[in-house]
């Protein structure tokens, strides 16, 4: 085992002070302990090579959330990213600031937008009464919330969110995971209001594209997308049926119940809303194009063989949950 390993870094620099702001790539090479993390290497750069490099870091133990940045294109918490894992053969590491956020300098991004998103979901307990001592609750109900409480607000999910890449109005994975915590907290009295707001809001729970990037990149196992899906299920159960998203999932569910398979034509119509003329008209060009190419899904949908069994299965399951 060698005493040190060589780490090669190519860092995206940005200096706003220069007129208009100057962006450039800068390469560095440092020698560090073989067990070092990417953060250790960056600190070595900052302390021994280039004091002008700006980045945020504090705890070095993946609890403060300061050191999110892109390593080879994907955001990571660099204090818990070991060099030997990302550069096993001494490959050069590409380091950039987190995405979807305004860059202040080098690897430092502004978290104003991030915290504005958090604020949008009223992220504090709203109980209906105040007890003498503590609220009683089961241990399971509290441990259930650990998933969301583990969030250290590092911004990594927001950095790599594919929806935020095209639409900054989306509340985003971190804020929605936090909102989930309050809908699941037995002490909070605003569950229905929260679900309705998240359901109705422009940029709310239905804007997530289910790409799982946030689940993949979250360094603390919060799995924001899974929380968003749970919010969707809860919102529907609470009676929020006024969205395209609801119609989409409801139509899908029913289609499979009826045919064992998905009826794409029906799905398109239902999701748009049968009486939503503009949206229906919107579907016409694609429908025509598909027809021309000989692949419009059959108006009488394909059914699975013996699809009655699927309906029976649904009825058994639905019957049980009543």
């Amino acid at each position, binding site marked *: 085992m060698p005493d040190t390993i060589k780490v090669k870094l190519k860092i995206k620099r940005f*200096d*706003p*002070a220069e007129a208009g702001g100057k962006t450039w790539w800068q390469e560095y090479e440092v020698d560090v*302990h073989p*067990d070092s993390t990417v953060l250790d290497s960056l600190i070595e750069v*900052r*302390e*021994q090579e*280039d*004091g*002008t490099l*700006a*980045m*945020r*870091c*504090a*705890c*070095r*133990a*993946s*609890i*403060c*959330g*300061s050191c999110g940045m892109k390593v080879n294109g994907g955001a990571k918490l660099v204090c*818990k990213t070991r060099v030997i894992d990302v550069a096993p053969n001494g490959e050069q590491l590409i380091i950039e600031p987190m995405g979807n956020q305004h860059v*202040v*300098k*080098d690897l*430092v991004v*502004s*978290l104003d937008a991030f*915290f504005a998103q*958090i*604020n949008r979901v009223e*992220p*504090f*307990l709203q*109980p209906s009464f*105040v*007890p003498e*001592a*503590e*609220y*009683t*609750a*089961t*241990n399971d109900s*509290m*441990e259930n*919330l*650990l998933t969301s*409480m*583990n969030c*250290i*607000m590092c911004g990594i999910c927001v950095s790599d969110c594919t929806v935020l890449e095209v639409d900054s109005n989306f509340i985003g994975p971190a804020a929605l995971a936090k909102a989930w915590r309050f809908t699941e*907290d037995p*002490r909070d009295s605003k569950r229905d209001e929260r679900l309705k707001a998240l359901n109705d809001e422009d940029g709310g729970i239905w804007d997530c594209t289910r790409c799982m990037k946030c689940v993949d990149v979250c360094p*603390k196992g919060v799995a924001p997308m899974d929380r968003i899906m749970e919010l969707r299920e809860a919102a529907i159960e609470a009676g929020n049926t006024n969205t395209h998203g609801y119609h989409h999932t409801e139509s899908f569910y029913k289609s499979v119940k009826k045919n064992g398979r998905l009826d794409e034509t029906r799905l398109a119509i239902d999701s748009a809303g049968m009486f939503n003329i503009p949206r229906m008209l919107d579907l016409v060009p694609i429908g025509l194009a598909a027809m021309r190419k000989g692949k419009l899904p059959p108006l009488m949908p394909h059914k699975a063989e013996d699809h009655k069994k699927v309906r029976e299965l649904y009825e058994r399951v639905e019957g049980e949950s009543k």
Partner: protein
Amino acid sequence: MYEHDVLIIGGGLAGLRAAVEVTRAGVDVAVISKVHPVRSHSNAAQGGINAPLTDRGDDWESHAYDTIKGSDFLADQNAVEIMSSEAGEAVLELERMGVIFSRGEDGKLGTRAFGGQKIARTVFVGAITGSAMLHVLFEQSLKLGLNVYEEWFVTKLIIEDDVCRGVVAIDIKTGEMHTIKAKAVIMAAGGAGRVFEPSTNALICTGDGLSLAYQAGVPLMDMEMIQYHPTTLARTGILMSEAARGEGAYLLNADGERFMEKTAPDYMELASRDVVSRAEQTEIDEGRGIDGNVLLDLRHLGREYIEAKLGYLQEVSVEFLGIDMAEQPVPVQPGMHYIMGGIKTDVDGATAMPGLYAAGECANVSVHGANRLGANSLLDTIIFGRRSATHAIEYIKGIGSHSKDESVLASEKARLQGLLDRPKGERVATIRDDMARGMTKGIGVFRDQASMEGALENLKNVKSRLGGFSIENKGKVFNTDLMFGLELEFMVDCAEAVVAGALTRKESRGAHFRTDMTERDDENWLKHTLMYKDDEAENGVRVETSDVKITQWEPVKRVY
């Protein structure tokens, strides 16, 4: 120039708890922090917070005694009485704010065992109690619309006629400097772990608050009391919570023995931290360690239990060491963790300077004396954070309007420009490393005259180099390079006070263990040391002493 009634320096648990209290009273308040509040080091506290709950058959006097015994009788007993008697309600209040504490069968707050206490009264959230509490207090601050000067770095306190009237600070994002005037300032800027190397502390724990107060002439008390936590990871110093031992983990030496039997047959792994650290260091020094470590063994707890109650510890172990705690023991060693010493305050957080309060790790009331019990620091922050706020709210009623004097801003700007203009010299990091390694070497788990004098010599050398470091980054925006230079100066002040206290106290008590004076000397040394910055004094520090307040409990020999 900005103006507020109350200004709180630091956005961690003590700072935010104080802020919530002031806001609730309808008084104008702002928090200033060099990092976003949720990045404060409070989030690294893992194990739990002590809560003597009288309706569960516990009594606060039992907790008070455990605390005082743990402090090796250096704690001021009136202050401990206040902390312990208010603890239960303070923790219940946190739960009502929304903290997701674990529960017992009856749905009420659940507890785990913790060091130095026979009764299990430590209320917790997995192994992320500090983070869970900090995030809830942050949520409350959002609810109350708290004004935060986020990423502003305080360089100096404003003192007018010997009264604290605010701060001079840099807005890190722009590099612009401003004064923020206040009728009362609450210093809640945390500890000084980076004065040592390695340390469990974050890189931001550079003793800013301690130094700022010290420079203003306020004494720092019992600075020699440095806590080495028994279970930290080698090289990185990352913390493995006492909660592991609270949940039943063993400490083993290379022979597989639970060596705590030798020095603490009653409390075993849950003796006070200084006792455990010394026992470990002894095993290591006497050749029964493994590569400078002992082993923390959780295997018998089972995977499911570990993941439910100590999830974060498993994460750290797997991510940083590649060790699955359910399968293998974890190598740990004593590591610098906490400073019992701090800015001397009374039980209301008031310091020797009117207008300046202090709370949290940077303060010393004293409730922790010569050794702090685990899960008492989180308690300290919220009790004295709140009490400082309550007192400050009253205090400001008698304070007049702010002066227009900006002269201190001009002098600070000039000072900082001077640093930036220095010709190329030594790197700040090099000097800091030398200082920190020297401090750990000389003021370690075990110390003696020679080692402490060695630390002093090293520090003298470091001080002689302070005039020669240079700042490479000459820019304005996010100039962390400049900040590191300022932090180095803060750290040296803290180190100076630590060394002076260590050389003064001629006994062993709690965390200050001298191998050349192994006994406690209540007759001569049941006293606090007080360090004053004094350029006329030897090594720049004037040391005085003051008596320890005894109320109910006569000091006895500490046995675990």
